[in-house]
């Protein structure tokens, strides 16, 4: 979808007018209050889409919630002015706000599953949303409207009685959009509406949102951390950092010529499919790096010995028994996958959620027993490893996880976390292990003074660095990284990718890099494997995959990238 043409905002009064919006959260136990949003002002005309972009903690979601006064009034202080169609919302009575919410201003959240009631059919939920604001409408009329609305977002009326869990993620988000537009609101606040969705579905939902928005003439505030989402959807974009505006401009202008260094870094850090693979990425500290990380010389054909080989690998989970046949249909998470990783090589594993890529990586990491197929490590059979090989595998194959908040034990200090692999796999004594832990921290760009801190004292990017340090501790030959940067902000993502590329260059470790993000995979990997529904669809060199994909599925995946 193309960005909409900017309308002449001067001729009509803006639907939403925010002036000097400041939101403060009371500190814990009477401590100093935290200011989440400071002095923000913007206007939103009818039919306009404003993208609100920022990284974690920038206060962008707080703005979205404040527009509908959804904060807990006991702990939050909202000052300034929010005028929706000429009506002041800051300090308005609760009864007045209730009339606004859902009718004049609606909200779409990131997670549709938790936003919908699990016990009611979607049709009933939509009808209820209508009747709330149209008390005189009868049941039949509300149901008719619900059916029409669902039909409009592409869900057949036959599914009116289905419950939210029976829909896929994209369908649920459509239901949410239908519900938000049920009462023809003047303002729609969409808070990360597509973040939880796969790229292909994301595109579809965004297109639908744009279509409906034009049809109804709704003003949309699109809150997102992803510049790519905003780029294709919003007329204007406002960049938020630490609760304050950094820059605001028409989207095309902002992306083409960002004025402020922060915006420039943000735009530059967002990887696109035209980056130079293996080059250092721009970060906030270093907006225009010129470095190109040394690449592994391309192995001509087959290496002497593959580091890790998987043949016909499959993992079937026992399924639930269904009545007519009473035979358990097993779920084939991984179905006959063959992979090979050469020493020092980086293999990317790409697929949408549920494609079996994580399960495959878990099998290679030894966390999951395969139900079929063979696994070889360094020439030895590792399908059922004996004690010695298992020890070797647990030393030479290490893991980096997606969620930096879950991958570190919150009750153990960094020193203790790094100590575990060293104690298990090296003969070092306590003092030497501490020294080595300090060295590892230094290697990932953290000061050794942080050794005795707990994970909660670090930011997400720093935690991911600690996770990488832990993986490096026993000097592994293969690192399996399962979506290592997808939970991070773009600028942090760039820093962590730079770190990984630097470490790869210095240490010559092989990587299995699991990701759903094609741009990241293209930038980082030598060869790429594409998985779809548990099967390997394509496995080829990077250049070939991105320039001349063999299969229809890969082409679709590439097309969904904005």
């Amino acid at each position, binding site marked *: 979808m193309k960005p909409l043409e900017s309308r002449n905002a001067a001729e009509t009064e803006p639907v939403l007018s925010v002036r000097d919006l400041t939101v403060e959260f009371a500190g*814990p136990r009477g401590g100093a209050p935290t200011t989440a949003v400071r002095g923000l002002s913007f206007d939103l005309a009818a039919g306009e889409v404003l993208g609100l972009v920022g990284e974690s903690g920038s206060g962008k979601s707080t703005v979205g919630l404040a527009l509908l006064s959804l904060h807990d009034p006991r702990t939050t202080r909202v000052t300034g002015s929010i005028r929706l169609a000429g009506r002041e919302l800051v300090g308005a009575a609760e009864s007045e706000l209730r009339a606004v919410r859902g009718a004049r201003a609606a909200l779409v959240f990131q997670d549709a599953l938790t936003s919908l009631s699990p016990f009611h059919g979607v049709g009933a939920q939509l009808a209820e949303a209508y009747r709330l604001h149209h008390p005189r409408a009868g049941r039949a009329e509300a149901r008719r409207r619900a059916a029409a609305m669902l039909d409009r977002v592409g869900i057949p009326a036959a599914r009116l009685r289905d419950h939210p869990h029976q829909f896929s993620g994209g369908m649920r988000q459509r239901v949410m959009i239908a519900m938000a537009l049920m009462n023809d609101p003047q303002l729609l606040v969409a808070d990360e509406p597509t973040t939880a969705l796969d790229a292909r579905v994301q595109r579809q939902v965004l297109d639908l949102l744009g279509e409906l928005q034009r049809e109804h003439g709704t003003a949309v505030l699109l809150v997102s951390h992803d510049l790519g989402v905003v780029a294709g959807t919003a007329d204007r974009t406002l960049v938020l950092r630490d609760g304050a505006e950094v820059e605001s401009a028409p989207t095309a202008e902002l992306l083409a010529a960002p004025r402020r260094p922060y915006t420039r870094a943000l735009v530059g850090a967002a990887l696109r499919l035209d980056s130079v693979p293996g080059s250092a990425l721009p970060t906030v500290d270093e907006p225009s790096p010129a470095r190109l990380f040394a690449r592994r010389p391309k192995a001509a054909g087959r290496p002497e010995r593959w580091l890790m080989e998987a043949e016909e690998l499959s993992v079937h989970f026992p399924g639930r028994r269904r009545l007519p046949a009473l035979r358990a249909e097993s779920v084939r998470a991984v179905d006959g996958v063959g992979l090979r990783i050469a020493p020092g090589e980086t293999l990317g594993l790409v697929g949408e959620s549920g494609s079996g890529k994580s399960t495959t990586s878990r099998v290679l990491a*030894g966390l999951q027993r395969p139900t079929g197929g063979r696994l070889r490590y360094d020439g030895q059979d590792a399908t059922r490893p004996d004690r010695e090989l298992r*020890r070797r595998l647990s030393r030479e194959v290490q893991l980096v996880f997606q969620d930096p908040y879950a*991958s570190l034990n919150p*009750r153990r200090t960094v020193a203790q976390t790094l100590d*575990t692999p060293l104690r*298990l796999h090296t003969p070092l004594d306590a003092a030497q292990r501490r020294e080595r832990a300090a060295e590892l921290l230094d290697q990932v760009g953290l000061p050794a003074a942080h050794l005795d801190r707990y994970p909660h004292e670090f*930011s997400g990017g*720093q935690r991911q660095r600690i996770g990488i340090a832990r993986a490096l501790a026993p000097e592994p030959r293969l690192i399996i990284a399962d979506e290592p940067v997808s939970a991070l902000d773009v600028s942090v993502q760039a820093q962590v990718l730079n770190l990984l590329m630097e470490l790869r260059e210095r240490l010559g470790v092989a990587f299995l890099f699991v990701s759903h993000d094609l741009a990241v995979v293209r930038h980082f990997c030598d060869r790429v494997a594409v998985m779809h529904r548990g099967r390997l669809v394509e496995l080829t060199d990077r250049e070939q995959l991105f320039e001349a994909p063999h299969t229809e599925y890969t082409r679709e995946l590439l097309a969904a990238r904005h």
Partner: protein
Amino acid sequence: MAALDTVAVTGPVPGPAEPSLLRRVVHDRVGAAALAVVLLFLLLALAAPLIAALYGKNPVEHYGQNTPGLLSDGGVPMLPNGGISGEFWFGLEPGLGRDVLTQLLYGIRTSLLIAFAAAGVTTALGVLAGVAVGYLGGIADRLFGFLANVLLAFPTLLLLLAISPVIQSRLVDPNAAEPDWMQFLVLVLVFSAFGWIPLALSLRATVRSLRERDFVQSARAQGASRFHVVVRELLPNVRSQLLVHATMAVPAFVASEAALSFLGVGVTEPVPDWGRMISRGSEVFRSDPTYLVFPGVALLLFVLAFNLLGDAVRDALDPRRAR
């Protein structure tokens, strides 16, 4: 904390270290008061012999019977308000004529000894069972579920009423009195046998969700032993749950012990005990209502203080309130 988009995510600059648990409990006004009362009771229990020596009375001597003029012929204290005087600060026990203050003081020792021992044993058992079963899962988990259901269905009170005489007749010489330690042991054992299940159940649930977390997977992938995973990775994460359980278990056991003694199957004469004092107080309530007041109020204060302290500890450990 896994959300990507929360304001609470700490920035690159780490904040100051979190205040200690004690600080946070004391910061809460109710918590501070509860802690003070609990500490006062502990101090009184510890210093009971010293206080009794300074005060010049002991909990077993029958002052009312030995000294004429203190009790009437019917065994009721002569002085008003249960015989409160400069000599006997909290009055005298009707009938036997023992000193109420020292009995109360030594009664704290009885209650606390049993409650702390039972809380210790149940916590240990609960942790062992809950963490092990939660981590192992599978058949161990199913067996445990069954056992827990059976034990929870057991009528604890009836069991105690039934086995208490059996134990006495089996293990104690019919002519000798049951030794004190045996009474204590029986009570602690019965409390422990049933008290560990709730903790084990809640720990099992916690550990089940923890074991799927990445940091546990990471330790497993690095080749850590089960022992390491349980002791180093899992236990530290259930610490707060344990602390809350233990603080809440103590007052529950104090109340149960008093209830059992009230029914006559708890601690027997001559060991001072609040439950028995309350029982005696209810018997003589018509002639001497004051006697019921002291142990009643003491028990109420004690249990209330401990419960409030438990609440304060839980609040202090709650990450949502600590933020």
